[in-house]
């Protein structure tokens, strides 16, 4: 596997995370006192998020910026401000909704990859968005 970093090459950031997660999860988890077990699990989960964010390689970020640009907003702050002020034209609503849904899905691919499928199965969501 090639690393995205020419400067650091191997081990790359993801490989360092793999090693750390394996140590925390496989070695430390059975050994920590009960009062720290929950936070250790949370910490391993945090590192897995970072791993997925690195693996995404900026694709999610670029797609997010494209969606904002298509709607005519520089960033989320500008879109949020316009929504708060009621300044998003009503005829843009379907595109805004579709963009916001895609943003939430993109964030969840990093934060909690099972969430969308679980939600859709439980709530009977069908069709592709």
């Amino acid at each position, binding site marked *: 596997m090639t690393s995205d970093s020419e400067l650091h090459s191997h081990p790359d950031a993801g490989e360092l995370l793999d090693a750390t997660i394996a140590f925390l999860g496989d070695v430390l988890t059975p050994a920590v006192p009960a*009062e720290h077990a*929950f*936070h250790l699990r*949370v*910490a391993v*989960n*945090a590192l897995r*998020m970072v791993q997925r964010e690195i693996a995404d390689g900026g694709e999610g970020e670029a797609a997010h910026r494209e969606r904002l640009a298509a709607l005519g907003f520089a960033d*989320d*702050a500008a*879109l*949020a*401000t316009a*929504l*708060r002020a*009621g300044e998003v034209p009503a005829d843009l609503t379907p595109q*805004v*909704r579709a963009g*916001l*849904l895609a*943003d*939430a*899905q993109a*964030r*969840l691919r*990093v*934060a*909690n990859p099972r*969430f*969308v499928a*679980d*939600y859709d199965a*439980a*709530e009977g*969501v069908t069709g592709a968005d």
Partner: protein
Amino acid sequence: MTDPDFLRPVLAAALGAAHIEALEARPLSAGASRLTSALDAVADGATHRLVLQRERVAGRGAMDVAAETRLLRAAHAVGVPVPEVIASGKAADRAYLVTSRVDGETIPRRILRDPSLAAARTRFAADCGRILAGVASIPIGAVEPLPAPDPLSGIEAMLDRAGTRRPCFEYALAWLRSHRPSPIGGPPAVVHGDFRSGNLIIGPDGVRAVLDWELAHVGDPREDLGWLCARVWRFGARPVVGGMGSVEDLLDAYAAHGGERLEPADLFWWQVLATLRWGAICLEQARVHLAGEFRSVELAVIGRRAAEMEYELMRMLP
């Protein structure tokens, strides 16, 4: 909590005892604002199983124990199951609250799975309907002063200080503002403010106690019903009410015990509110960590869970 000695005279007076022979505290949980310990006291030969809640940082006023004491006593008076208040006050500028200790489970995933709680799960929605009708029947005069905030203003304040702007949440906020439900038939009522399985003590016989009254306020009783029905409190299980029961059972019991007769659709606005509120709380938790108020990997990671509520809101709303 290594030294609860300051409690000896307080407990002697509260328990009507001449001597406190033994006093021992064992940490149960440490939140951002308070530390909770199991407290065992031996007074004149009798053992008392208690809970001590103590403000974490002196002088911040994060715990209004006078208000909590009023609420717990008023709730008990109308038949809402709560721990009994033994003593409350301030020591070394840190508030404390001592209550009786109610046995049972408070961890939602265990409540959802423990075989010994199967009967409690079956009756959970009806228990909650009955108890929430009781909460809404607490005479406001018995618990004043209590804040009566607009339900959207607290959410807006959290979004504004989050340090991140979320268009999904603004979309939901705008929808909530433009679709406010008409007021309920009765006058404003006491709202618990955080009524969910994690704040209840559950035994094999059902809900034994309602805890954590620090977010109680005056408002629309549908707020507690909607919050209880939020998806986040189902912990992966399907049933709408805490992953255990149906909204029909909840609302039937609510009406049967003196609450307004409501239909599931009457809760939709409040479920959207609950979803947005949990999303805003996710951002707030991360802010508390990032601002250094309470450093915690748990709070940091919860910030990323805001995306779950963004997705739910975009699926719920037109």
